Each structure stands twice: as structure tokens, then as C-alpha cells.
């Protein structure tokens, strides 16, 4: 299972590199670094959104695309499935991962809670990019109440 950790290490170094020049630059710098990570994730998501469904039957509705992210996208990236998917059937979805691999190495509990957003920005971009390729404009935000569990809130924008 060496393959599984390679991306985790790469991701760790991506985050470290973006914050290396100025560890505490204030809100402007932090937001910019988060945006860079989201942009990276977006492009990766665009490509994966095209390649992964190659063998998948056609999606009939929005929910099919979200289920695809929870199963196939997560399996390709993190070698597991999402633990839960909830929706209000009005375009808002909450994707729950109780043991998110990019957070697992921090241990559990509240110690590194403040740092967590750095490690979720790439994945937010990933989800947004994959949905964009599949034809949905979305707004993706992440929240962490207690490591290593996290939630991604996906709001599909009606066009």
C-alpha cells in the first residue's frame, strides 16, 4: 500500500510549500494560499471528472453525479468510499468522511483544528472541478468539528 501514501506525502509538501515563505502573513496571504490549493484541486478534478466516468453508465440526474463522487472519485483518490451523503433535495449536499486520509496523520482531537482548512482546500477544489466537468456549477466548503472527521458542503448553483 505504498502507492496510497504517496499522494498524502505530496499533498503534505504542497501545503507546507505554500505556507513556507511567510508562516503568519495575516488574512490576505492565508486566503491566497487557500485559493492556490483550490485552483490546483480544481484542475485535477476537471481531468478526473473526465477520465473516471469512462466506464460508468450515463448519469440520469444530479444525485447520480454526487454518488459518483462519493464512491468512485473517493476510491480513486483515497482508496475508500465516503461515509455518508445527505441532501435536502434542493441542490445542497453534505458529504461526510469520518476518517479523512489527509487529516488522519494529525491524530484525533482538537489539537490541530485551526490548521485543518489548509488540508481541505485542495479537496474542495477537486470536488468543484469534477462537478464542473460533469456539468454542474458548485460552491464547495469544508468543515471539521473533530479530527479526522470532516464534512464537505456542496451547493449546486442553478443556472
Amino acid at each position: 500500500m505504498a502507492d496510497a501514501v504517496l499522494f498524502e506525502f505530496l499533498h503534505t509538501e504542497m501545503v507546507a510549500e505554500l505556507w513556507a515563505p511567510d508562516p503568519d502573513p495575516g488574512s490576505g496571504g492565508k486566503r491566497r494560499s487557500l485559493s492556490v490549493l483550490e485552483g490546483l484541486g480544481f484542475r485535477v478534478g476537471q481531468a478526473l471528472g473526465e477520465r473516471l466516468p469512462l466506464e460508468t453508465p450515463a448519469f440520469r440526474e444530479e444525485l447520480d453525479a454526487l454518488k459518483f463522487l462519493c464512491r468512485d472519485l473517493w476510491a480513486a483518490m483515497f482508496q475508500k468510499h465516503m461515509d455518508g451523503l445527505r441532501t435536502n433535495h434542493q441542490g445542497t449536499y453534505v458529504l461526510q468522511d469520518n476518517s479523512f486520509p489527509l487529516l488522519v496523520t494529525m491524530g484525533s482531537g482538537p489539537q490541530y483544528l485551526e490548521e485543518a482548512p489548509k488540508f481541505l482546500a485542495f479537496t474542495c477544489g477537486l470536488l468543484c472541478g469534477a462537478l464542473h466537468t460533469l456539468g454542474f456549477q458548485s460552491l464547495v466548503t469544508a468543515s471539521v468539528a473533530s479530527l479526522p472527521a470532516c464534512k464537505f458542503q456542496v451547493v449546486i448553483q442553478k443556472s
Partner: protein
Amino acid sequence: MAVCIAVIAKENYPLYIRSTPTESELKFHYMVHTSLDVVDEKISAMGKALVDQRELYLGLLYPTEDYKVYGYVTNSKVKFVMVVDSSNTALRDNEIRSMFRKLHNSYTDVMCNPFYNPGDRIQSRAFDTMVTSMMIQVC
């Protein structure tokens, strides 16, 4: 083999279109353009179908006296259209289907190319080569 192959973006503008012979180019562009209405009909019919009809391959869109037009739509809503000479009776459905699969595979490679901006026209040499192999005249 195909006389015209087109890749249409989800916003319905051409990402790639190639035809042979080039003197008939306008005619083939017109046929591809016309076929998009049929593609849209098939896609919306798919969404309403009670039976589980989830094929990416849309089959024969419409025949004309001289040509047959086939369609394929990806999960990312990109459409592939292929025009085949009607006189080429050797081509069967399975072969058309596998040609579309090759096209889809090659398109995903383009999408994963770090120098390709999604939404731009396709200018990949590898993609060109693959399309050429599907357009070579056997006779």
C-alpha cells in the same frame, strides 16, 4: 471508415472537427450541426426513460442517402459525432461503438494533458493521429 469526426463541447461549440475530402467540408459541418438536435432529443429522452437506458453510445442519429451519422455523449456532456459513408456496408454497430470508445479514451488523455486548457480547441498531435487512423480510406 469515417468521413467526418467532430467533438462538441457541452456548451455546443466545436472543440474539434475534421473531414475528408476537404472539398466536402461545408456539407459535413452542416450535417454535424443538424445532428446536434437529434443528440439533444436522445439525451432528454434518456433522462425520462423508465427503463434503465444509460448508454453513452447514441447509435444512428439519422441516415441520409449517402451517409450515416452516429452519436456518442460522455458523462461530462461532451458530444462526439461521426459521419460514415453509407456505401461502407462492412462497418457494423460494434465497430462504430469501439471507434467512439477510442475517441473517448483519447479525449480523456487530452483533458489530462497539463498544457491543455479545458474548453479550448483540441490541438493534440496524438489525437490527430488517432482520428487519422479512423479516416484512412481502405479502398
